[in-house]
């Protein structure tokens, strides 16, 4: 096998392994309803994913500007998925509705 082919194989294997590790993370869900994130606080691990589902009548966002986490507008019945890639708590807000906040504790 050529060196290039070997490198490509190693790279492909690494990507496959990392995808596998991410896919093994737990899936969490936060419901947006009544101008609230429910639950307001969740505990996750690195590699886990969180899906926010908007069950409210109005649009919302999931935003932490400092950490560059931005869902954009999540319309009613829409959803947004985020994969947690590093440790550290994430406090987030809805840009549209002052006072609406949630926390992701990352262990």
């Amino acid at each position, binding site marked *: 096998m050529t060196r290039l082919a070997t490198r490509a194989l190693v790279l492909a294997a690494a990507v496959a392994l990392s995808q596998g590790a991410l896919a093994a993370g737990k899936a969490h869900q936060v419901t947006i309803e009544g*101008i609230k994130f429910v639950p307001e606080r969740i505990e996750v691990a690195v590699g886990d994913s969180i899906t926010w589902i908007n069950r*409210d*009548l*109005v*649009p919302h966002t999931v935003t932490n500007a400092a950490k560059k986490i931005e869902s954009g507008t999540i319309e009613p019945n829409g959803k947004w998925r985020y994969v947690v890639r590093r440790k550290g708590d994430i406090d987030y807000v809805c840009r549209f*509705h*002052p*006072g*609406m906040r949630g926390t992701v504790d990352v262990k």
Partner: protein
Amino acid sequence: MRTLSVTAFAIAALAAGAAHAQAPSDPQIAGIVVTANQIDIDAGKLAKSRSKNKEVQAFANQMIKDHSAVNKQAVALAKKLGVKPEASDTQASLKKGASENMSNLKKLKGAAFDKAYIDHEVAYHEAVLDAIDKTLIPSAQNAELKGLIVKVRPAFVAHLDHAKMIQGKLEKS
């Protein structure tokens, strides 16, 4: 202030409508809900174009987005239930009050406009919440229609809180 007394009269009709008249029917409730949302969308559009205050503009934009979203769902539900929104005295009072408020707002600009718009938004959301609690939710016969009004209530509370926050800032400036 003249504007607020005109508005207050019209808005009082909303809250007190059922006190001396029959409770509104589901078609009338649908009519009131759609009109109440549309009034705030229209006021929001005026404020978005006229205000130079970033917070007032952002609030106005939110009123447009939120009330449009609620109306979309209200109209879809009414269609699904075969409920055709009907006119009522309460709806007519709301429209009259809104028309007078808009006429007044169009005469104003700058800080005077911002204050009048936000003051009205506070009073309006207070009255709508009062009507939701005392008239619309208790009177709604259809469970899904009642559920929609119950579901929308927190958004109106959030709007009121937001408007009060801006009202406080405008009073200090």
